[in-house]
């Protein structure tokens, strides 16, 4: 029995600790392989290029995983993810609108930092509006929030389709390129800004894990135990909004990755304690992106996009989860 550990003498964290250790090792191997495999030409240049990619993927993998776990806790469900709240489709809509009004070329010529800031702000604004509007009213039913998110997502997608119909075919091809996650061309400045954002948000939210565990027990139980359920849920959703906005603006949507790694994390750790599920999900996200990208570029010669594979695998897993829920 360990004193001063997490409230969990009944819960044995050994399994979760093993998962953290194994995944850390796996991540180290994946990074080492990615960085050193088949290095050619100028060593400095190649390493810097690859290092940037690795950092980008690690950031996105972690941010997506962390935000999905938080979203699951805040909404008391494990099947929906932030992308189902309309985030991904808003990103696509912003890109499409920009392409329509400015032309892709012009839009891409705007200072990347400015563009990034604009994208993040637009998505954060959307989230803030949504939460303020829904959470700001008496009974704060999070299912309504999700439902509205789904409806807005569908609306954004329809709007996008409408605008796409009116777009010049050349622009359309260039636009499509921006609508899938792209890890090969991450801008260095953005990388630094995003890294700072994610690190800051993570550091600020780590101390909430104990209270978030209580939130996972449900609103009434949390209230009885003295945890302000509504405040924590709003905070968790704010963190989700920041993480998702940053990662989407950085590389584009990676739908289903969060769902995949969060649920794998619950299965691997066998617990709902955030101090275990968040690190394991984060590690899984990083391993999936870095390892996946490595296999893709070294052995499959970029025959396909990583995000497409993730969407495919995640989609199948999503159906599996739905099937399992339905049979409970």
């Amino acid at each position: 029995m360990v004193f001063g550990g997490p409230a969990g003498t009944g819960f044995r964290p050994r399994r979760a600790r093993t998962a953290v250790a194994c995944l850390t090792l796996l991540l180290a191997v994946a990074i080492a392989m990615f960085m050193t495999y088949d290095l050619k030409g100028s060593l400095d240049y190649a390493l810097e290029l690859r290092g940037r990619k690795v950092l980008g993927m690690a950031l996105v993998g972690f941010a997506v995983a962390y935000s999905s776990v938080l979203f699951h806790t805040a909404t008391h469900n494990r099947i929906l993810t932030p992308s189902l709240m309309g985030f991904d489709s808003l990103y696509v809509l912003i890109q499409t609108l920009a392409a329509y009004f400015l032309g892709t070329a012009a839009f891409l010529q705007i200072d990347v930092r400015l563009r990034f800031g604009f994208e993040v702000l637009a998505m954060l604004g959307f989230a803030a509006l949504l939460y303020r509007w829904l959470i700001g009213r008496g009974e704060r039913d999070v299912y309504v929030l999700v439902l509205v998110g789904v409806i807005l997502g569908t609306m954004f997608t329809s709007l996008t389709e409408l605008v796409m119909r009116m777009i010049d075919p050349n622009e359309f091809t260039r636009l499509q390129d921006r609508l899938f996650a792209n890890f090969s061309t991450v801008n260095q400045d953005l990388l630094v800004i995003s890294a700072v954002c994610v690190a800051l948000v993570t550091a600020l939210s780590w101390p909430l894990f104990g209270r978030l565990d209580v939130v996972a027990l449900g609103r009434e139980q949390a209230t009885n135990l003295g945890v302000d359920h509504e405040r924590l849920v709003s905070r968790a959703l704010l963190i989700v909004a920041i993480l998702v906005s940053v990662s989407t603006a950085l590389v584009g949507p990676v739908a289903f990755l969060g769902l995949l790694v969060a649920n794998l994390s619950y299965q691997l750790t066998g617990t709902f304690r955030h101090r275990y599920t968040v690190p394991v999900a984060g590690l899984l996200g990083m391993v999936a992106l870095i390892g996946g990208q490595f296999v893709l570029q070294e052995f499959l010669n970029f025959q396909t996009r990583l995000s497409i594979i993730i969407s495919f695998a995640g989609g199948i897993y999503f159906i599996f989860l739905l099937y399992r829920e339905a049979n409970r």
Partner: protein
Amino acid sequence: MIEIENVTRRYGTTTVVDGVSLSIPVGGVTALVGANGAGKSTLLSIIGRILRPDAGTVRVDGLDVAATPGATLARRLSILRQENQVAVRITVRELVEFGRFPHSGGRLTREDVAHVNRAIEYLQLEPYADRPLDRLSGGQRQLAFIAMVLCQDTGYMLLDEPLNNLDMRHSAQTMGLIRQMAQDLGKTIIVVIHDINFAACHADRIVAMKDGRIVADGAPREIVTPETIKAVFGIDVPVHEVDGRPLAMYFA
């Protein structure tokens, strides 16, 4: 002391708790009785600040429950709800440990562990302490939730039908435990209970509700009478004296 002043709660146009005022001094067991839908759980939830009243205030030790920080209240007041389920997979011991959260914020001290072990022992949960809740019977699960509230170790305890799903032996033991805590530890306990005889046997005071109002309030001997039972539940029940206690024969 719990002071309830003019508490009202409506759902749409129906008023389910209707201007209830009640004062409960420190120490002792108060039984809250009444027909299904009388508003007992609603009132208890309002006292336990799980539900907001539309009007009125509840003060516990002078603290307005609607305005006092949740963490402060959680060390003074605990509530066991009528329906308990958690969405996540959790073992009995883990659940009971959460009862210490208001005191230690998730990091168990030696004292917390002692509380947890005592609660598990009191409710005889040792055999299933490490089993997930979803692999227990209904009564075993109920005992686990009672253990958690016990572990919270607050001066005021609100228990909504703690005998749900419990067999004869566990019901009697649980009521015995409740009375013992009031007597030996000076706790103030409000318990919603359907069996009027359990109430008569273990409570110091019985408060009866009907249609959202308090219609009777007094010592068991004053409440468990054919007239009052008729007024509260609308049935004719003979009451006999057994071993110096009133016993309502409502079975037939």
